[in-house]
């Protein structure tokens, strides 16, 4: 089996980076990752969700490489909405596994704060079906709220149980130097925050942040955590025709494939970063990855047994859209070796990167 290793990485603290252009922000973090790895790359994979919608920029990879003076190599852009990061890592993995390249880099970047907050809703709504969902004013938030209501009812939870997710994420984010929110919050803060789409409140919605993250991946160079497997699955069923609303179908499929290819089970997972763009998605992702039984994630959260999103997740680190999955890969890789984060108690970690409302999920298994 071909080995693909994370030999270098860098993260940009998530935030509101008004002073930088998108290509420069990506180039800065990519340059740091290359210095960290100490290798030359043969190709660049760019994960970005909103470069056209927000920055009116295409061929972003070429402009990123221009900033670094890296000439002649190919640059590809991968777009799967807010799941672009995981998809780009997957594409980079395949490019290495094919034997075509020895070392490549993945850089994820998005700058949603270059537009006003209600324009951000327009931009993020582009992950919905543009003709039959976005047209009518629906957003990931409205559909997450419908799913949250059905999940809570079906499994006998109250909203207070779900509100504990945000509290936990803020607790974790407080310890992450790259997080946007580095402060703890109380359950009362969550419960008294405004409704965004009932039952979901402000604290159930991950903030859209400007962010950039980069990882350098090499084939057969045992110099860092190894990407054991990658898997991407798309959900071809429109929201209104789905048979179940209390599960992430695309994730379950991708997770089953990724675990099988890596030869591990959920019990082996010591570090996990999941896509909690909306709190309910984080909860469903914990179950989809098999880290809690179906309907059991909030009970596990209450018992204090959830070891996911040590970064603070999208809720506290921030949702950097296309960059998010690259952040997650780096966070899991670093947690396994105890760099920047407390060292995970085990050898394996897993990333869940999702685009839209369960439209596509990537699962990446990382191991030592």
């Amino acid at each position, binding site marked *: 089996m071909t080995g693909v290793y994370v030999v270098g990485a860098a993260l940009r603290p998530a935030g509101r980076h008004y002073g930088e252009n998108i290509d420069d922000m990506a180039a800065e973090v990519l340059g740091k990752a290359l210095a960290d790895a100490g290798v030359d790359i043969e190709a660049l994979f760019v994960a970005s969700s909103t470069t056209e919608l927000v920055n009116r920029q295409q061929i972003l990879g070429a402009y990123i490489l221009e900033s670094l003076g890296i000439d002649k190599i190919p640059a590809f852009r991968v777009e799967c909405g807010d799941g672009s990061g995981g998809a780009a890592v997957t594409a980079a993995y395949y490019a290495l596994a094919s034997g075509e390249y020895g070392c490549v880099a993945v850089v994820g970047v998005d700058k949603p704060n270059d537009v006003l907050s209600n324009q951000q809703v327009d931009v993020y709504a582009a992950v919905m079906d543009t003709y039959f969902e976005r047209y009518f004013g*629906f957003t990931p938030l409205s559909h997450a709220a419908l799913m949250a209501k059905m999940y809570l009812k079906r499994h006998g939870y109250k909203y207070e149980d779900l509100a504990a997710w945000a509290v936990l994420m803020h607790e974790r984010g407080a310890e992450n130097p790259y997080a946007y929110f580095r402060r703890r919050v109380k359950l009362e803060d969550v419960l008294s925050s405004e409704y965004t789409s009932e039952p979901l409140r402000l604290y159930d919605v991950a903030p859209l942040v400007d962010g950039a993250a980069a990882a350098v991946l090499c084939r057969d160079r045992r110099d860092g955590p190894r990407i054991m497997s990658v898997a991407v699955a798309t959900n071809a069923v429109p929201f209104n025709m789905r048979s179940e609303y209390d599960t992430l179908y695309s994730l379950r499929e991708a997770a089953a494939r990724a675990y099988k290819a890596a030869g591990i089970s959920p019990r082996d997972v010591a570090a996990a970063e999941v896509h909690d763009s909306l709190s309910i998605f984080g909860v469903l992702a914990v179950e989809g990855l098999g880290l809690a039984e179906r309907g059991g994630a909030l009970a596990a959260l209450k018992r204090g047994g959830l070891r996911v999103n040590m970064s603070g997740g999208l809720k506290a680190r921030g949702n950097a859209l296309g960059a998010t999955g690259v952040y997650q890969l780096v966070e899991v890789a670093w947690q396994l070796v105890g760099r920047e984060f407390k060292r995970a108690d085990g050898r394996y970690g897993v990333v869940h990167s999702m685009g839209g409302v369960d439209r596509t999920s990537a699962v990446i298994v990382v191991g030592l």
Partner: protein
Amino acid sequence: MRHESVPMYWRNIPQYYRLVAKRCRQCGAVYFPPALRCRCGSAELEDYDELPHEGRLVEYTVLYQVGTDFLKQKPLIVGLVELNGGVRAVGQIVDAQPDRLAPGTRVELVFRRVAVDGRHGLIMYGYKFRPVQP
């Protein structure tokens, strides 16, 4: 959005106005929004314009964070509706008090303005649902 596309609106009018779906000639499965190929493998799908215009609310939410086209309408009530016969659709629920809605509430299709393009003045219409008065 800054402005919508006229052809994009125009070509979807059968769905926006009348819920025109596709039905598989082989197995009878109905697809809304329309699909090109049935899950049974058949590519023989025909227009199906007989979806019932009445149904029941499965679940709903009140959405306060809306895009720029919907700022004047906020909050929006967004409901998952099961039409009589079993096909589901998501639609705005109008002429309704959120606290009087519940899963099972009977609703009917109505024709309403969806959004107005601020730059070109294009008015876009489509289906919404309202509770059936007892």
